[in-house]
């Protein structure tokens, strides 16, 4: 089939081009190392080289970084970047407002992971905005935490949020509470707060594990508005089942951009969007090529253009 041959040559040259492009990107600061790393024995020798397998990751990081910077500059220069509606986030204001009307506190659960999880660090950034809003409304904000390191971050975030609102007096140190490092003991403590202090809004944003269902069920029984958000896929089903609003997966990482509409953050989200579109395109191209050569792949031919294309994403080790 002539068309097949043409396609194969196009794909081949494309992938070689892509390969050398990514290689060029690499050489901006680094040179690609051909020798096996095991043969390098001197400590710093090869410090400027990179392992073959990791080139696609480097390209992804650099690509994302570039796109992010460009989008951020455009956004700061006044380019309008719209952001789609996220229902769960519109509900945040409503939930805090309802708490204020009812004169009851807002409960913020930053997940149960330690600071080593980026979702936890991100939860601290969201906490700052929530603290700002509750301080503006004059509603008490209770933050139970599971880890002592997270506690220090949470205290800073709430303090800063109150400062942002111009109400430093709204910060109550006793409301950022360390409960326990034990997962289920922590969970029991939070359930206790839900029952005793009857918060009208439960915001559960962060990294959750098996306790998610206990928290969500208890919160439902106390009649609070519940907004949950996590990028942890296992716990999403339980939040979707038991909470009023759920912020799903990547939406979680768009929260601060959505709440502040700050150009820098919007630029970051735009960067992620473009990267995602590139990923989708790559998947489509990959699937098309793989399907065209499926007969050869099935008989174990590893020299098809598909494999050269796949090499761009998952190169063999040196």
């Amino acid at each position, binding site marked *: 089939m002539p068309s097949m041959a043409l396609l194969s040559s196009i794909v081949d040259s494309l992938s070689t081009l892509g390969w050398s492009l990514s290689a060029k990107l690499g050489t901006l600061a680094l040179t690609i190392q051909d020798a096996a790393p095991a043969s*390098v*024995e001197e*400590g*710093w*020798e*090869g*410090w*400027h*080289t990179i*392992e073959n397998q*990791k080139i696609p990751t*480097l390209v*992804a*990081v650099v690509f*994302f*970084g570039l796109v*992010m910077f460009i989008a951020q500059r455009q956004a700061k220069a006044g380019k309008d970047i719209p952001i789609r509606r996220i229902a769960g986030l519109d509900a945040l204001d409503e939930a805090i407002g309802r708490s204020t009307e009812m004169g009851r506190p807002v409960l913020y659960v930053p997940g149960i992971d330690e600071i080593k999880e*980026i*979702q936890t*660090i*991100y939860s*601290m*950034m969201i906490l*700052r905005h929530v603290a700002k809003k509750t301080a503006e409304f004059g509603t008490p904000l209770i933050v139970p935490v599971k880890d*002592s*390191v997270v*506690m*220090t*971050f949470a205290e*800073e975030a709430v*303090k*800063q949020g109150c*400062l942002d609102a111009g109400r430093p007096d709204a910060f109550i140190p006793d409301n950022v509470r*360390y409960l326990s*490092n034990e997962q*289920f003991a922590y969970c*029991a403590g939070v359930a206790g707060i839900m029952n005793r202090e009857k918060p009208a809004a439960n915001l559960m944003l962060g990294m959750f594990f*098996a306790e998610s*269902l*206990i928290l*969500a*069920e208890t919160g*439902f029984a106390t009649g609070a508005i519940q907004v949950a958000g996590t*990028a942890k*896929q296992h716990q*999403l*089903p339980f939040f*979707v*089942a038991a909470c009023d609003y759920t912020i799903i*997966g*990547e939406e979680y*990482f*768009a929260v601060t951009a959505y709440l502040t509409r700050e150009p*820098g953050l919007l630029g*970051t*989200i735009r*960067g*992620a969007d473009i990267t*995602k579109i590139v*990923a989708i395109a790559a998947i489509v191209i990959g699937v098309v090529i793989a399907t065209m050569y499926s007969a050869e792949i099935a008989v174990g031919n590893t020299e098809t253009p598909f494999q050269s294309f796949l090499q761009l994403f998952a190169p063999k080790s040196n």
Partner: protein
Amino acid sequence: MKREIPILLVVLCGLAITWAFFSPAPMSRAVNDELLAWGTVFFSVAFLLGISNLVRISLKQISSRHPDWPYKLLLLLVLFGYLLIGAAEIHGWFGIPGGENIRRDWIYKRIFMPLQATMFSLLAFYIASAAFRAFRARSLEATLLLTAGALVMIGQVPIPSFFPFADWIGDTSVRLQGFLMAYVNAAGQKAIIMGAALGTLATGLRIVLGIERSYLSE
């Protein structure tokens, strides 16, 4: 300076680890290893902050005769009793041969293990009540949630043979379940995993490059 030095440390450590990830140089492994060991040390040391907080709050409640104070006393007794026994075993105090762990093992198997496992097993009850409440065919989305959930539940277990059409139900549900898990579920999972990875990349890059500072107060 209160903010600049920490940001500088974030950027330096972040770049060092990022470099160590990409570089095959032997030294990168040493740098990586050392920084990770630091992280482990800080994490373990920070545990002291947690214990001191727990003890402080418990003592406060005991001294102010909070309604639950006897339980707090129990908590402190168990905590310090276990800590003392453990430390004695690790360091060989009170004539106990150092490095033994039979006493810790006793407490572990008779107290810690049953409590943790039972707490966790409470979820068997909660998951049933959550399913009962949430799985209603209110909308297209909710109906799909319900159907997929029920199918997977049936497909996971053998159907008792006295049920009408047990073989057919068993066979069909296993196949549908397999299809849902291996293809539809895998697609949804992949999308969430990739989205979360992008979010992590975005946030991580902003932190490592020192652009994102809002987690540190001014």
